[in-house]
């Protein structure tokens, strides 16, 4: 019998006992729905986590320090490679070299200094740090009021909310109680005067440099709730100004005194350079390349590796739980088809008497099982998607109540849809295996004998 005929006859048979077959199909769709729901939750959570980590900038950044610098993140690194005294300087030349490595998007010096800021004619002392324009998309500024810098060298400043509260004369003892919106409104657009010390070379005299005092008016454009103690490169700074602005200021750095020899040269010296990598996957290679240049490096790559392993295991378990329901449903298929054999005993006998071969009968039952699986798979995927949307909706309501921004914890990729339907189809065919061979082996003489 041709495939089309098998499918047509199977469709007719399914319609004959529509209630029973619908219930079986419903069972499959519930099984598929639970599988889809479980897996899309796992995938969604994984995507949420990696999205967060990607935006945090922690996992695609490498912190580069000089071996000469005593402030190392990892003392072990000093055991290998050249001795600190013979290591190269982490200067502008080195920064350009790092920036030109394949996979590096940008490499910028981590510039920061403590200085006096005047607001309302009152002096305040705080750490100022440079912030590259690329940080605009980082989720560090998710809760920011106002806007990001208009240009890389704009005379603008973004305040940490604690410092903003200090400017307004509010208590800063409990940072959690400070609402960004409350402190931002009176400050946005106001002027702040930053006093800073510029390091200037004394002409040909390389042995010394002058320090010139400057005053620079800055416009407050944003207030952020960025945690000053976070692990970001700009940690502990409470004011951020554009990276290009701070680089052009040649501010006096803490290490200038210690490294006075090199500091006076035209090639600026940096304590820390942050290299941003085009993807988390390339961090390892780039890190090795930077180490070869003779610098110390630090990244949090290993954390992503264990995270990926965790999610692989989570997905596996969610998949197993989801599959359990499908297994139950597949037993339903076996049951329905075995019942159908009993019911259609005579019909099978007639078919054999008029010339149906074993494979014709088998094909017919396979087609019925496959049709139930396919329909159940499609319905189940839709059902799973609806369940997912509902849970996502509910979770977001809860998150919003708890004061978190809504997130997509649910993801149903195309491969999951195709995979779930295909899997349901496959499982149903396997379920049809036994009933089909049983029907094919039915003795037509026996089948036709009884009325």
């Amino acid at each position, binding site marked *: *019998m041709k495939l089309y005929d098998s499918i047509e006859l199977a469709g*007719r048979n399914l319609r004959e006992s529509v209630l029973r077959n619908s219930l079986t199909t419903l069972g499959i769709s519930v099984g598929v729905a639970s599988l889809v729901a479980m897996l899309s939750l796992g995938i969604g959570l994984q995507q949420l986590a990696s999205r967060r980590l990607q935006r945090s900038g922690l996992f695609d950044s490498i912190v580069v320090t000089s071996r000469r610098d005593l402030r190392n993140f990892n003392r072990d690194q000093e055991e290998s490679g050249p001795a600190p005294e013979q290591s190269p300087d982490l200067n502008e030349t080195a920064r350009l070299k790092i920036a030109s490595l394949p996979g590096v998007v940008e490499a910028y010096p981590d510039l920061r200094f403590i200085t006096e800021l005047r607001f309302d004619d009152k002096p305040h002392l705080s750490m100022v740090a440079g912030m590259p324009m690329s940080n605009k998309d980082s989720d560090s500024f998710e809760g920011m009021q106002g806007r990001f810098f208009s240009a890389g060298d704009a005379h603008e400043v973004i305040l940490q909310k604690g410092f903003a509260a200090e400017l307004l004369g509010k208590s800063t003892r409990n940072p959690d109680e400070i609402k960004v919106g409350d402190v931002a409104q009176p400050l946005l657009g106001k002027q702040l005067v930053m006093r800073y010390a510029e390091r200037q070379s004394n002409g040909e005299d390389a042995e010394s440099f002058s320090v010139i005092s400057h005053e620079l008016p800055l416009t407050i454009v944003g207030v952020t709730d960025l945690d000053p103690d976070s692990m970001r490169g700009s940690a502990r700074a409470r004011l951020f100004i554009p990276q290009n602005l701070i680089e052009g200021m040649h501010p006096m750095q803490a290490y200038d005194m210690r490294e006075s020899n090199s500091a006076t040269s035209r090639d600026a010296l940096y304590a820390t350079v942050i290299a941003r990598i085009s993807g988390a996957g390339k961090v390892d290679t780039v890190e090795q390349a930077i180490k070869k240049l003779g610098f110390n490096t630090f990244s949090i790559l290993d954390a992503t590796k264990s995270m990926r392993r965790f999610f692989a295991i989570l997905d596996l378990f969610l998949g197993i739980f989801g599959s359990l329901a499908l297994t139950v449903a597949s037993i339903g298929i076996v049951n329905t088809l075995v019942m159908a054999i009993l019911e259609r005993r005579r019909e099978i006998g007639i078919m054999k*008497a*008029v*010339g149906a071969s074993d494979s014709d009968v088998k094909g017919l039952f396979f087609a019925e099982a496959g049709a139930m699986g396919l329909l159940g798979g499609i319905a189940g995927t839709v059902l799973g998607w609806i369940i997912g949307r509902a849970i996502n909706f509910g979770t977001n309501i809860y998150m919003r109540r708890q004061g978190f921004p809504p997130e997509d914890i649910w993801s149903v990729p195309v491969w999951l849809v195709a995979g779930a339907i295909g899997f349901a189809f496959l499982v149903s065919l396997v379920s049809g295996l036994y009933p089909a061979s049983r029907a094919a082996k039915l003795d037509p003489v026996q089948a*036709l004998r009884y009325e």
Partner: protein
Amino acid sequence: MGSATIRAVDGVSLEIHAGDFVALLGASGSGKSSLLNLLAGLDSPTSGSVVVNGNYLGGLSRNELAAYRRHTVGMVFQSFNLIPSMTVIENVELPLRFAEVDRAKRGALAASALEKVGLSARLEHRPIELSGGEQQRVALARALINGPNILLADEPTGNLDSRTGTEVMDLVRQLNEAMQMTVVLVTHEHDLAEKYADRLISMADGKVIADQWNPSRAAAGAQS
């Protein structure tokens, strides 16, 4: 069933010639239906052999037996054995599906087969909407759709009144004569056998007890 072996057909040896109309007579349990199933390739003998058109049925695979049932023999039953969920024309078309006949040709073939049995007006009816005689004529059309050489009829009039029984049997006789089709008729009605069959084979307890040419048919044949 049970532990005792029942010899439904026991030591039967007979030869049926192409184009013959043979009646297998006997009381119920005499083994006539079992013999018919052997001829149909639905059952296989524990010993001995069935040879049709020079082919040993015992040597055929299950698939070849299915093909044999599909193309060489056609069957009609006492209880018609139509599939109730299918319309008349779909029932007649069913063997064509198994024979993998082109979809486009099936409708016309089935319709013409039904025309031969005089049921052109009932194509889209369900079997249950037809009378017994009509149902048996549908079964006959189905048996003949693939053009077999042999028609095996198991008590075809058993569920019919005498008038419609006669109608069906007239049709069978017509096919036998017009198309030189071999007919094996299983019946317990002596009168019916004598009226239509050329050869009467009587069975009891699985054995052939009488095998003779039908004297009344011979006479009828001489008259015509």
